[in-house]
């Protein structure tokens, strides 16, 4: 059963104007000095945001590829509550005759509503930055520049095939499992299809995405302290760096221990935190209902505790169950959700859908009884 219609994203009213603060971090020579630093920023950037941005921004050699057209992305929550997304690329030669290419990062700073307008997806935010900057990243030092208008937002899902191999599903589920627990991870995306990293991000509940930092296309640097790093080059070098640290290494060939096992049978209860949610993730991916899972994750804007996600997963299953329930089960399930208080938008939408499905089923059962 497709519950897509119940999970269409709705934007918050606060996002009507996507005017955001922004900053450029790169290496240029100016009267104030040279080397990597914030060379231009809009007036709303706060000192602690500057510090955090400087700490996490990629510098010389920060992009994983030496291709002049290489792209990277970095995203992280800030202590002020905003989320920072940086589009990283090369911008010509390093100006100090030291070899290599200049790394340029255009950062934007979004409040919660603004980030939600992009489905909490840094890839979509980066798309908006590219649309503004074009092929010429800004290199002019400016003490204060105006805010940037990022357009109307976008919640488009990644363009990937909904049919995935069990290896891909295991890789995605491992990432979701680690992200839910808050374990830092490096995911080897070498050989994976286009858009698989964005997909992995989008199947993490939205409220968790707001709290997790990420990068793609950047050289892995533990000092940047990012939660989720996707890499597709320098695999062995990175794996050695990750070894013997608390950062998890997630490889398509070796999913995290326990991942996949939970999906063996829906009836099998697991005491592991998030087990119910991971079962839902796996079964939805296995059955090719990718769009539906993404919309569900996008709508989880509140309670993402193990209990909260278990409730959402059960509710999701009960919609299927109630559509074919007999009178006794229908009564049991209807009673269960009679006074249900949703803790996130996904639950609210699902419970509305549940009630409609239950009403429809009751009507069907009543008709069947009359016909008999």
């Amino acid at each position: 059963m497709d519950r897509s219609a119940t999970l269409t994203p709705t934007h918050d009213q606060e996002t009507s104007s996507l005017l955001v603060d922004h900053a450029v971090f790169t290496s240029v020579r100016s009267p104030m000095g040279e080397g990597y630093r914030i060379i231009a920023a809009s007036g709303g950037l706060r000192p602690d945001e500057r510090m955090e941005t400087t700490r996490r921004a990629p510098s010389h050699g920060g992009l994983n590829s030496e291709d002049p057209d290489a792209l990277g992305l970095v995203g992280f929550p800030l202590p002020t509550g905003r989320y920072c997304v940086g589009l990283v690329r090369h911008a010509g030669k390093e100006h100090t005759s030291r070899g290599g290419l200049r790394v340029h990062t255009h950062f934007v700073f979004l409040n919660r509503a603004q980030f939600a307008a992009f489905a909490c997806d840094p890839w979509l935010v980066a798309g908006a930055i590219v649309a503004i900057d074009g092929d010429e990243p800004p290199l002019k030092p400016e003490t204060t520049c105006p805010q940037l208008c990022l357009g109307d937002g976008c919640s488009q899902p990644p363009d990937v095939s909904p049919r995935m191999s069990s290896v891909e599903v295991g890789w995605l589920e491992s990432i979701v499992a680690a992200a839910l627990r808050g374990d830092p991870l490096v995911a080897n995306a070498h050989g994976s299809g286009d858009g698989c990293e964005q997909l992995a991000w989008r199947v993490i509940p939205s409220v968790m995405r707001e709290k997790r930092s990420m990068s793609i296309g950047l050289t892995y640097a533990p000092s940047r302290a990012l939660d989720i790093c996707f890499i597709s080059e320098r695999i062995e070098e990175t794996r050695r760096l990750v070894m013997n640290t608390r950062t998890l290494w997630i490889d398509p060939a070796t999913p995290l221990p326990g991942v996949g096992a939970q999906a063996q049978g829906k009836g099998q209860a697991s005491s592991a935190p998030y087990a119910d949610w991971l079962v839902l993730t796996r079964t939805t991916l296995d059955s090719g209902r990718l769009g539906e899972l993404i919309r569900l994750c996008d709508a989880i804007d509140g309670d993402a505790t193990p209990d909260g996600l278990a409730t959402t997963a059960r509710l999701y299953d009960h919609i299927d169950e109630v559509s074919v329930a007999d009178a006794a089960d229908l009564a049991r399930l209807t009673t269960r959700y009679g006074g249900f208080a949703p803790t996130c938008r996904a639950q609210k939408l699902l419970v509305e859908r549940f009630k409609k499905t239950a009403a429809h089923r009751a009507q069907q059962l009543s008709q069947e009884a009359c016909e008999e």
Partner: protein
Amino acid sequence: MNMEPSATMRKLEPDVCLICGTRNPDSAIQCGVCFAPMAVVQDAIAQEREPEIVSVVGESNVGKTVYLGVLLDMLAQRAGDFKAIPKGAYSVDLQQTVISHLAHRMFPPKTPMEANSWYWAYYQVLHRALNRWVDLVMPDMAGESLAAEVQNPQTFRVVHSLLNKSSGMLLLCDAAQAANGATQPDFFGMKMLSYIDSVLGVGRDQRINTPIAVVLCKADHCPECFDDPEAFVEANLNRVWNLCENRFANVAFFAASVVGSLGYAYDEKNQEATAVPLHTALCGILEPFEWIVQQL
């Protein structure tokens, strides 16, 4: 020859970072907080002597990497009164990078801001004239990280930890820029010294005793600074000179140069000029280090 274990050595533990004191997992290669190699503390335990940290500070592109790389190479080649033994292959990486790049008429790559990518050198150095061994740890910090930390303290805590633990410092200033009337080297030097002043935190009536060698880099551009580095600093980096006089009791001034002659390769397509170090002519590299070692 004094090679006995230091009587004053504090108890070092193999899993506790020498720089920031963080306890790390046994198997950690780098400290999880400041990213110093854990091999430093393990080597220190093996030596039964706590090493002295000597920090090389200065703004981006002043020449910290080149200076440190060339200095280590000179020590390894028994220049002057020194004999030096690297502790671990990681200690050789910096000098190898610098020397091989200069040999190919290139400057070494920029040091990334990410602390986990910095080079660290741990050398056992014998000053033959003093007949004294000193164990030295010298990290090659990125100028941008130093600048960010100086501007907003706590941005890169490793810088604070390192300077706080340093027994001596080399402050590199761009003599070529200063001689051309640029104020940037003076302001950066002043900021750096002011930061060191606050990190070492002595009372307002006292002056800091930690030895600081102010090194005028790229002195080949203004050879006059070799004649009297102190007078050059007083004239061209006057803010730095005044601050040194006011707050630091143990400062000396030096001039240094690595590159003998510089060519410029011009890329017509991109209209970019690239500086090419045609040959090296080392001058004044050992002296500041020798002075620091004498002060330890």
